[in-house]
């Protein structure tokens, strides 16, 4: 037996399958125009509700076709784009805002801190899915709005962690020295605090990413997410419910993709957390 390779130490063998799923989905999303067998919006009324593997006029529907004769696999590949983009952008926006506000709250103390951290408590006390639903209902659905809503609902998670971490670092000698030597507040926060709290923040990111995928799909499922004809897994699944007795594949495959994506993100996220917290 050889010693574990460097890759093996970086990521245990049992996690490779999850990393592979994530990589395949990410690549599919990135290369959608090239890897999708069909355009996601081309309808073919002769090929409606065909089961997986059927061929109609030279087009093979690998995962079947939907009620308008669109190729399900192609729609799912483009759906991966929506899922991953919305999740990545909402994590980015909420993470940036939350981390910044958390650091500012810890650094300035006093009223600023009280107001920010109270707001954190308040937003977190509303069940997240309800808060997301009511804000979408107010703003209206759509790509940008969904990201805005998810960012608004989730920033307090980052703020709480950034706040606690910053408080712990603020009075360390090197931070005090840098202030003493005249560094401005933004410089201290960005150069000295941020690099030292980024680990715990990344743990929140990995936990939140799967949740954001789930939320986007949930909102789309309820008709409050990205609007048709843009293919979103949640919306495809929702439409497929009407054909569950005749064409099970329309509802089953988007859910399967969604489940595999969230599962992989969660499993890898757990690993990241263990590494950051030094448990392995």
């Amino acid at each position, binding site marked *: 037996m050889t010693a574990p390779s460097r890759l093996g130490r970086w990521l245990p063998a049992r996690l490779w399958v999850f990393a592979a799923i994530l990589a395949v989905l990410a690549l599919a999303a990135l290369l959608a125009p090239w890897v999708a067998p069909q355009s996601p919006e081309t309808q073919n009324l002769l090929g409606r509700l065909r089961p997986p593997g059927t061929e109609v006029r030279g087009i093979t529907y690998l995962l079947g076709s939907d009620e308008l004769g669109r190729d399900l696999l192609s729609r799912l590949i483009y759906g991966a784009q929506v899922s991953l983009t919305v999740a990545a952008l909402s994590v980015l926006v909420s993470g940036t805002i939350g981390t910044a506000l958390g650091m500012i709250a810890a650094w300035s103390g006093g009223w600023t801190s009280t107001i920010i951290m*109270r*707001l954190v*408590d*308040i*937003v977190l*006390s*509303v*069940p*997240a*899915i*309800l*808060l997301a*639903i*009511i*804000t979408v*209902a*107010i*703003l209206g659905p759509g790509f940008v709005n969904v990201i805005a809503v998810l960012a608004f609902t989730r920033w307090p998670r980052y703020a709480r962690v950034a706040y606690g971490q910053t408080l712990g670092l603020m009075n360390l000698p090197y931070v005090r020295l840098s202030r003493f030597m005249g560094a401005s507040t933004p410089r201290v926060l960005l150069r000295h605090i941020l690099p030292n709290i980024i680990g715990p923040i990344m743990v929140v990111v990995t936990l939140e990413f*799967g949740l954001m995928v*789930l939320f986007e*799909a*949930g909102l789309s*499922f*309820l*008709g*409050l997410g990205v609007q048709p004809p843009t293919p979103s897994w*949640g919306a495809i*699944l*929702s439409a*497929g*419910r009407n054909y*569950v*007795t005749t064409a*099970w594949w329309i*509802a*089953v495959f*988007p*859910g*399967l993709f*969604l*489940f595999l994506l*969230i*599962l992989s993100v*969660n*499993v890898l996220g757990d690993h990241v957390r263990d590494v950051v917290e030094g448990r392995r």
Partner: protein
Amino acid sequence: MSRFLARRLMQAVISVLGVTALIFFLQRLAGDPVLLLVSEGASQQAIDALRANLGFDRPVLVQFTDYMSDLARFDFGRSVVQQVPVVDIIGSRLPYTIWLAGVALLLALGVGAPLGVFMAMRRDHPLSRLGMGFVLAGQSLPTFWSGVLLILLFAVTLGWLPASGARETQSVILPAICLSLLSMATFARVTRTAVLDELSKPYIRAARAKGLSMGQVVRRHALRNSAIPVISIAALEIANLLSGAVIVETVFAWPGLGQLTIQSIAARDFPIVQAIVLLGAFVSIFLNLAADLLYSAVDPRIRLEGGK
């Protein structure tokens, strides 16, 4: 203890007030609230009439104080579509959601906790490995997908159970299973960790050395102490079950508050949506408070820390 209690209660009150204000200002920030309520293509006259009728033409602060004092009297306004007090509509739907969430909680706790105990006692048993797989999968399972799978298997293919609605008693089974899976996984995971934690303590080794069997040790000693985290998680899980009901009720056409929320959004009946969100927030604040108090009531160590 009383200082901890007072501080925690104060926090809850501030959260309640804050959430109420948050929802109010969210609506105002998003633009003209009247436009949320009218159907598209309504005449300017109709819009103005509704605005005056609902009092939206008054200063925002006056509206806010009115809104707060109405809420303090449990007056959530009238449904725009049905012209009935919101409280009556919610009252007619609430029992369904409580029934669904109640059955789901029983299922989650009844299956999850014993599974967790088993996984802690027999760590290498094949069933335990299967259980860990379930814990992992359960946390990543979208309810709107597991719901469809349940319908496909038990309603469409086997024809054992009704796929939707709430006409028969057994209608609750599929939505309750669907709703309970995530909580079940959580209970199994938390119970397993809690029992394992307890089993690693010296007093357990002493009890074993005294000659008690593993089963006796778990039953007489470990279970009682490991119940603490499970109980406090239970309060939080109730909140999760209630908000999870929004999607599950939509999947199974279950006539509870969740379905009402989505129907009201589609009908632009905003007073109902607002009332449900506030209700959800209050319940979850209350349950969080209950979890903390319960926790400190059964575990004096937390009480001491909080009182410092």
